[in-house]
């Protein structure tokens, strides 16, 4: 509140715009109220969601005991772990190659290729890969999900790793080489430890992106593999329910637990 008041007091500061603070405040309300509503109503005893009837945690118990939910969570976790791992390895390799070179024209083209999934609406990618899988006769739902997720996770892993590499003075690698280290030893002893926060952030981000993906997973899934967002979507289509509120709350808490360290490492100097 003090910050808001300072607006009206500090009239001589040319860089302040009255009204922007109020817009910001309203914006944050807009951003967090819906989330608060879900969390609040997840503790509602009443089966009719919008009528408050008393506090209860029974919907959490029923959510945890929902076997389909647990199964879909397992699918999501497996897909996210495997595709994050592959995407991160590929991203480290690409980021190294593309930050430590000097012919600019080619480099920008390669960066564009690596970031391709970010430039198209996801539905385009989803449909394209669906047709590819059906032409190739790929039946295994898990395999389809892993391949698709690996592809669109690459840029999310790539960007923070590349940012980290760019922020790192390449004289450090020169110094290591100058002190008789081979390129491989230089990578293992100097480069990798120093870009580790970036690798970690990139890995976390692609993990969250994979866990969160709906559009591609919804189109590609089948063959016995339903991911968590696809399952929740099917619940939402049946209408609102207090159990859904509880599930959503659990997912939000889990996302925060993963996203917070990732964001922290991504911005760390």
């Amino acid at each position, binding site marked *: 509140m003090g910050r808001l008041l300072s607006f009206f007091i500090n009239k001589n500061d040319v860089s302040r715009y009255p009204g922007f603070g109020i817009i910001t405040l309203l914006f944050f309300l807009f951003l967090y109220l819906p989330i608060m509503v879900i969390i609040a109503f997840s503790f509602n005893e009443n089966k009719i969601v919008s009528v408050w009837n008393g506090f209860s945690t029974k919907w959490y118990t029923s959510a945890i005991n929902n076997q389909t939910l647990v199964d879909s969570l397992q699918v999501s976790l497996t897909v996210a772990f495997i595709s994050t791992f592959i995407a991160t390895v590929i991203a480290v*390799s690409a980021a190294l190659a593309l930050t430590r070179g000097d012919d600019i024209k080619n480099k920008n083209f390669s960066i564009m290729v690596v970031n391709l999934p970010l430039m198209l609406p996801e539905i385009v990618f989803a449909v394209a890969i669906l047709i590819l899988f059906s032409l190739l006769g790929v039946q295994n739902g898990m395999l389809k999900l892993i391949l698709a997720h690996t592809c669109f996770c690459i840029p999310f892993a790539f960007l923070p790793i590349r940012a980290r590499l760019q922020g790192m003075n390449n004289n450090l690698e020169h110094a290591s080489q100058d002190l008789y280290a081979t390129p491989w030893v230089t990578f293992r002893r100097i480069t990798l430890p120093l870009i580790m926060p970036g690798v970690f952030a990139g890995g976390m981000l692609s993990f969250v992106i994979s866990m969160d993906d709906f559009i591609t997973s919804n189109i590609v899934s089948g063959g016995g593999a339903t991911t968590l967002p696809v399952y929740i979507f099917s619940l939402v289509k049946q209408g609102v329910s207090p159990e859904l509120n509880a599930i959503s709350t659990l997912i939000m808490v889990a996302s925060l637990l993963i996203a917070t360290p990732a964001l922290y490492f991504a911005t760390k100097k």
Partner: protein
Amino acid sequence: MSKLTMRFWGVLPAYTVMILLMIIPLGIIFYVSLMTSDPYGGYKPLFSLESYTQILYNYDWDNNLELNFQYLLIIGRTILLSLSTAILCLLIGFPVAYYISRQRKEVKPVLLYLVTLPFWVSMVVRVYAWVLILSNDGVLESGLRLFGFVDDIDSLLYNNGAMLTGMIYSYIPLMILPIYASIEKLDPRLLEAAGDLYSTRIQTLYRVIIPLCKAGIVSGFILVFVPCLGTVLEPILLGGGKTMMMGNLIQNQFGVSRNWSFGASLTILLLCIVLIFLFLQARRAAKLNQGAN
């Protein structure tokens, strides 16, 4: 190893994935869009532009082509809603980004964190939040009724407004972050210089701040507009079955309708809209650069 061979081996895995899982599939999509659709699902390998004409025309009883506005309406709605989302995100996002950038050093990362946080919360859950709020007998309606504002309202859900709200909610962090980054680069002394030279705050905003933040504004606009064009969740959950957008129209062709050729041609059309938009932006940026040099 020379720099070039290192580059080659380093990007090879990424290239392989992108070529096999992105570029070739896009080629296949284009191929399928040129084939005849098979009434039993999938497509027949027979060349035909039928799936493209189907976007504009359908056959009447006498097998004559007849203009059909059904799909044009969806395409128009998609573009219009995406543009509105991007513009509203800009109008809300710019003041927010600016306000955050003017806070103390310790406050800034906290506010930025709060902006990004919902973005990492499951997309489906975020859209669901609005279903919960806007549905019949939902939180908003019950709330309004409780305070005696209304007796009965038509459903707040299943209209363009609901979709617009959901889309802004989903994509606004993508507008704020790049704008914030460009405002952060702005030297505050420039604002003081403008003020010193008798410019009012509003003039400074239009003549100094906005022109210098153009790069951030443009990339924020692209980051919001492009995914909006292909969005699927908002039209299904907030728009209901009736008010469709291209995203769920395409998805239906590969699901319920099983009309792959038509779905493929819609996908190509969507891709073209995105590419035209990106191309226009790139040309504008090039022109601006030329002006700057």
